[in-house]
């Protein structure tokens, strides 16, 4: 299974190893691990994030991630393996939240596909973050920069 949505933590090293285990055609392994950051949302005016809760759309989430992987494989047919893990539920600063690993014969397609999957995940997978602060819960706003990051992969019709 290349896509998982789970509450449990994951081991990035083990996930990376699995992508090339038992095969000798993988020459490049690009991985990305996202962590929960504790920074203040609104500069010095904001309050510290103590934890966050990840809500998602069960059923659609898995389909959306699988569709992103299919899209990546069609854009970079040389990709040899993909693994995507996204955690849900309550997470604390420093916790791992997302993992994307791509195995390829060469670094070009591995780097590109890994970044593409993250950029698309940010704008197309149905997850929502709610931060817990001393002042109460606060839904995280979507960022225009994420739309721009996803937009640069667009191909003209």
């Amino acid at each position, binding site marked *: 299974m290349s896509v998982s949505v789970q509450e449990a933590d994951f081991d990035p090293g083990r996930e990376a190893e699995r992508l090339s285990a038992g095969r000798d055609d993988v020459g490049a392994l690009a991985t990305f691990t*996202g962590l929960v950051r504790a920074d203040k949302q609104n500069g010095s005016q904001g309050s510290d994030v103590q934890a966050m809760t*990840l*809500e*998602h*759309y069960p*059923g*659609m989430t898995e*389909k*959306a991630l699988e569709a992103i992987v299919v899209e990546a494989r069609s854009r970079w047919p040389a990709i040899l393996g993909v693994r995507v893990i*996204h955690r849900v539920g309550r997470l604390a600063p420093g916790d791992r*939240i*997302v993992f994307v690993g791509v195995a390829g014969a060469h670094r070009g397609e591995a780097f590109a596909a890994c970044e593409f999957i*993250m950029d698309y*995940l*940010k*704008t*197309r*997978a*149905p*997850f*929502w*973050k*709610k931060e817990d602060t001393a002042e109460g819960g606060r*839904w*995280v*706003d*979507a960022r225009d920069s*994420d739309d721009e990051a996803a937009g640069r992969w667009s191909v003209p019709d």
Partner: protein
Amino acid sequence: MKFKVLYFASLRESLGKAEELVEAPSGVSSVAALQRFLAERGEGVPALARGRNVRAAVNQVMVKDDVAIADGDEIAFFPPVTGG
């Protein structure tokens, strides 16, 4: 026309419910039309008003709001996603 309508995140909290079965007039045949119907129901639901940056999915696929909907569809409304 009957639809299963789901709400997520801040929209779920504003509406005070995660899902409902909605019976709409036959003219409600697009995502935008359903959103308008829901927003104008009763005393009105400001969180669903046009221009509030509401995104939608039909049968678990994210869509633009001019997409057609059919009886029995599962329609979800939610704010822009913030995963990763």
